[in-house]
């Protein structure tokens, strides 16, 4: 009789085995890099060392950025931090909720310096002509990367795995996790948009 019991217990034992497997995985997960709350100073210094094309558009991030797993584009926590910084550092004063104002809009998918992280980081860090101030002395480089990741998300050029959190205030524009702009904004035969603020 008890053999039958053992037999019928088998699926449960299998389930138990699976759970123990998870437990072992838990130890592995322990070793997995946790949510990065404090970036090592050398890593932060390295994030400052990206290379930019001479025209200020596009470039290459430092190798360490890829080694970290592109955390400022792929990690919801960093994107959410970026979103907070967006309001903390007064970005809405010029760019509004992303629709633009004094400064250009991020929403239309037409960016003067392109959608690459390096360009955005450079824009924030060093400033740009026609009124974009440099935030080099106001923010740490880690914050600048977080903010850049968020700004890139507003434009939503490419699909992302992660999305920043939604603000608990009135929704005045499309969400950051909508479909990528690259589909919605086909360049078409007409070329450049004329209504997006001053050119560099």
């Amino acid at each position: 009789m008890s053999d039958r019991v053992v037999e019928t217990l088998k699926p449960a034992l299998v389930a138990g085995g699976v759970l123990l497997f998870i437990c072992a995985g838990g130890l592995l997960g322990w070793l997995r890099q946790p949510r990065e709350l404090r970036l090592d100073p050398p890593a932060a210094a390295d994030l400052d060392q990206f290379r930019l094309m001479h025209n200020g558009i596009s470039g290459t991030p430092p190798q360490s950025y890829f080694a970290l797993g592109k955390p400022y584009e792929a990690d919801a926590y960093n994107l959410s931090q970026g979103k907070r910084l967006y309001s903390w550092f007064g970005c809405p004063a010029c760019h509004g909720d992303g629709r633009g104002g004094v400064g250009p809009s991020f929403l239309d998918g037409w960016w003067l310096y392109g959608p690459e992280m390096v360009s955005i980081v450079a824009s924030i860090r060093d400033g740009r002509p026609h009124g974009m101030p440099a935030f080099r002395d106001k923010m740490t480089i880690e914050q600048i990367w977080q903010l850049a990741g968020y700004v890139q998300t507003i434009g939503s050029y490419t699909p992302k795995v992660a999305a920043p959190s939604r603000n608990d205030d009135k929704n005045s524009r499309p969400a950051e996790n909508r479909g990528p702009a690259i589909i919605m904004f086909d360049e078409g035969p007409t070329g450049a948009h004329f209504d997006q603020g001053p050119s560099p």
Partner: protein
Amino acid sequence: MTPKDNREIRDTAFDAAELERRLAATWTTPPGLLGALSTVDHKIIGRRYITTAFVFLALGGLLSLLMRLQLAQPEARFIGPDRYNQIFTTHGTNMMFLFAVPVMQAMAIYLVPLMVGTRNIAFPRLNAFSYWMYLAGGLLLWIAFVLDTGPDVGWFAYVPLAGPQYAAGKRADIWAQMITFTEVSALAVAVEIVVTVFKQRAPGMSLDRIPLFVWSMLVTSFLVILAMPAIMIASTSLILDRLVGTHFFNPAEGGDALLWQHLFWFFGHPEVYIIFLPAVGMVSTIVATFTRRPVFGYLGMVMALIATGVLAFGLWVHHMFVAGLPRLGESFFTASSMAIAVPAGLQIFCWLATMWAGKPIFKTPLLFVIGFIVIFVIGGLTGVMVASVPFDTQVHDTYFVVAHFHYVLVGGAVFPLLGAIYYWFPKLTGRMLNETTGRWVFGLIFTGFNLTFFPMHILGLRGMPRRIYTYQPEMPWSGLNMFISLSAIVLAAGFLLFFIDAIRSARAGATASANPWGATTLEWATPSPPPSYNFAKLPLVDSLEPIHDDAFLPAAIGLRVDRRELLITSVVEAAPEARESSSGDSIWPLWAALATTVALIWSIFSPWAVVWGSIPVAIALIGWFWPKDVPEDDS
């Protein structure tokens, strides 16, 4: 086929040996993997459920040891705040949703059909489905935890912290969907138990002859049916807020952060009684068996169960005494919370009276019941304390409350549960647990528990809040915390010994007879473990104690033996009404559960999953309900 034609295949037509052979052929689950995956036998599913729930208990226990390791010293650096928040959230969620509620329902899945004298639970395929859903929900939570995306917002997931703005990533979504899994499975089991108790009782088992454990599971099932929809609404609104962009809980857009708390605790407080009431039933059963007399005051016990069950729905605001509601409205909940002490006290007095008047035999199950009374009375009295608004403003969200609810839930539910495992282990496995080891298990757990949790009352009064991952060295808490952490090792050793004993005894324990304790409820009138058809002939019940000399009065019913048939009886008097077929084994519940799992997990990532994911669910349900061309019932 007319009844006249199949008279020769009724159970009245055969002698005992032939009847058992034929019933076994009809009811037994086929061997092999397919058989294991498609079985609808309530005993197999019940055992699976219990085993899985205890695995989750062990995992949740490991998490609590990690927390104690971190809290043993001030400003310890063993676990960071991010991981700690995941650990305490997963510990709470796991213990409430994956251990406590399922294990109680699992005991009912196994025991209720046996105790009411029927051959299978009502809706057996739904039962199989509910187990797979439960397993999937548990795996979702634990896999997420391992991948460092475990929920980190507390098991209560208060908004706005769990809302779209402050809980980045998928962590809170995983929590909300995992709740949905367990809701589905718990609701399914609750419905099965209500129908089994109301319509499948053995003839003669009128409402005043139902065993107290069955009464408690009946009340619990109604609580599940009424409370779970509240959390379903809550978790669904939360996930809509987070994924779709609704604003139920967003004050900036006319939502309300306190709405979440009302919805959550409207479920959350009855949840405590969903866990506690089955334990009350277990205690009554064990007390009756080991004092050699029926429980004193059957009427009072039933009254207490129902009154507690209903009052449970009027207590939710006592979790919100400091949220800023009018004190007058809060005091209404003080009144109800205090009033619930009366039925609880009545139960304690009845058990004491039973032990006083009976001749107690101090086997391990009764030891756990005595431990239960010692601990639960403390938990109940601290419950009276936190029910008072001014008292609660000091101890709410402190370690006092941590101590209180562990006294209520571990003392009030886990102690009876362990007693119940020792008591029903022969019926579950056909073997006995070791009595000597059992005494050690009880001693270690009882001592370890009190040493671990009693000092937390004092910590709470001395100002230590809950859910902190560390505390500063200048706070006067480090001595007691170190003491608690060391005591937790004793407690863990007790549970470890229990698990070792259970695994060893399941394989090599002493073989159990049909009724090793000399008990008087129906499950003991069939072999240990019971055959697939539970009872060769259905029992006839003539009193609260239907077993006389280890046997019951067999009823001459005339159920067919060539297909699975049950007897349906009336709700109040349990008079026979009809014969009804009970479903056979089927793989479709598993497919349906898999399809639902895919849809639910996918919906964390895209709302479109609700649309596309419903197609496989529909296919699985069509397969499940495909007509079999068999008449359903005969009057």
